[in-house]
């Protein structure tokens, strides 16, 4: 049996939503991140990054592979 608890799953780097399955992978601030949609990827780049800088990734856990 395999079971992955939710705290071992990735989150969208923009909205913070849990991502039980792999979505859009990208590199931001030298880190591998994941986005739930192309919309979130765009909002991250043109809203979160200009507003928060590297703080845009605050609270977003490191990406794991599953």
């Amino acid at each position, binding site marked *: 049996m395999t*079971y992955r*608890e*939710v*705290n071992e799953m990735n*989150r969208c780097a*923009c*909205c*913070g*939503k*849990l*991502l*039980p*399955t792999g979505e859009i992978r990208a590199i931001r601030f030298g880190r591998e991140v994941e986005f739930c949609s192309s*919309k*979130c990827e*765009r*909002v991250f780049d043109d*809203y*979160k990054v200009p507003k*928060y800088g590297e703080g845009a990734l*605050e*609270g*977003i*856990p490191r990406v794991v592979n599953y």
Partner: protein
Amino acid sequence: MTASSAAEAVVIKSDPFLLEIIRNYLRNTCREMGVAMMRTSYSPMFNEALDFSCVLFDSDLEMIAQANFCPAHIGATVHWIPAAIKEIGAENLNPGDIIFTNDPYRAGAHLPEFLCIKPFFHKGEIKAYSANIAHMTDIGGMVPAAFGDHQNTFQEGIRFPPLKLYEGDTEKSDIFRIMISNVRTPKSSYGDMKAMIGSLYLADRRLEEIIEHYGLETFQQCCKDSLDVSETLMRQQIAKWPNGEYLAEGIMEDDGVVPGKQWAIRATLVVRDDEIIVDYTGSDPAEKGPGNQSFGCTASASYNGILQMVEGDIPYNGGCYRPLTIIAPPGTMVNAVYPSSTVAGNSDTHPTSVDVVLRAFAQFSDRSSAADGGTCGCIGFGGIDAKAGGAFAHLHLEGVGWGGREDADGNDALFVKNGNCANTPVEVAETRYPLINMEYALDVNGCGHGKHRGGYGTRRVFRFIGDEVEVSAHTNRHIVRPWGLKGGLEGSNTQIKFRRNGERNWQGAREMFGTVSPGKFSNLVMYPGDEMLFITPCGGGYGDPLERDPDLVRQDVFEDDLMSLDTAREVYGVVLDPATRTVDESATRVERETRCSGAEADLTRG
């Protein structure tokens, strides 16, 4: 469609009349699913409170129809259903399968909300999904009916990740056996689950009928066009609002666990041309108690507030949500992470979140309302009782006063904005459970005065008649009052008090039982003849009370017995003649001219 397409006309390939027919057919299918659940379920949460929602999704996992049931579920469906299907894998689904989960961390709502999803197959391929979310009265855990002062998800009850509840039209009885052996209400929980399942089969039949009638290609084109129409209308609406960033804040008064600590929800409403971002960055870290929102819950609150501001009629479906982005930092109280407790996030934090969004809108829109009573009034009764047939759990919901708004007073005694639920009728509760209602009335002792005043809350007295009844609660606004808007005054507070059999004086939970909170506690034991007083808040007022139509004040005093002559004069500057029951217009004019109208309220803070 792109972010800059607001000015574009809606271009559709479908016949517009047929588009409307199919759109309304699908919405009506969702309604019919709900009626089926109401008529076939066992618990009052389903057949009286109607705490459920029914939706249809297309094969691309966009919502194509919803009915007007519980707004608290809608945001969750938009995010939760795709996540659950992706986790199971659409390629792993077969005809007759049903997915089930109640996991709040996977963009769900809160643990009592059970989600069932059924893929609709046509000629061997998935062409749509039907789904429903419904509130189960009891999910096991440390208190009957799930609402108390929990500190983690393990205390809340049993949690199911997405799994197949049915395979090939056959129920997986092992899962049902685990489920019903972990709750206090096995019979009604099983019956309620079967009502959910039956509703999904009904949707299957309706989808098959419409596709048979119009053909698959026409059906799918209409679904696609319907989504695009809603998206375009939503973008056109947003484009009418002024670009800018509008910060608002609301306070949760306590969490039932940490004495004296308050938590802030902060939302920045960002209007950018034809898009909106609701950014909760800056909200406080998660509570230790149960008032944390899941992501789905926060999305629901945001969509709720935004849709209330929409002028005109936009068909609700996934297209409405395309221009909206929610940013909810993980680990804060608006995006709880495992194993934070979330059960009350969807009941008592949720209405404050909606009001925070409305408060942000109030900075440029007159459509916003003052804060409502801010609590679902969730009180759980439970224990062992022969009348109830053994172990029982009953979740009591209560209406509150809504905030005044630009064109009207707030609604009286109505469930908060996030729920759209009904209360359980006195007769039903008294027939099933060991309690009786000694009083049930509007509470007119508090009021959020204003040009348009807040609606009134309720006053209820329960008397317990069972050997031992355990009372638990998660209620809000005992300390922090609903805010007013644009010169309107604050509403009133919630109150919960108790007295033992034969005693005259009421005591709060802190005084009588030593609880941390006056409104968030678990398993207080009541004995026969003991009583509980429950008063819900009046909503905040909108606008300066001195601008209220004097004739409305006269009605409040003489026709509806809602306020006194003294209040009419002192707060509203309206002088009434008790002999003739009329407004003394000249005295009122003098009274009002001598008053100051008061300072403008701070629109950002709650």
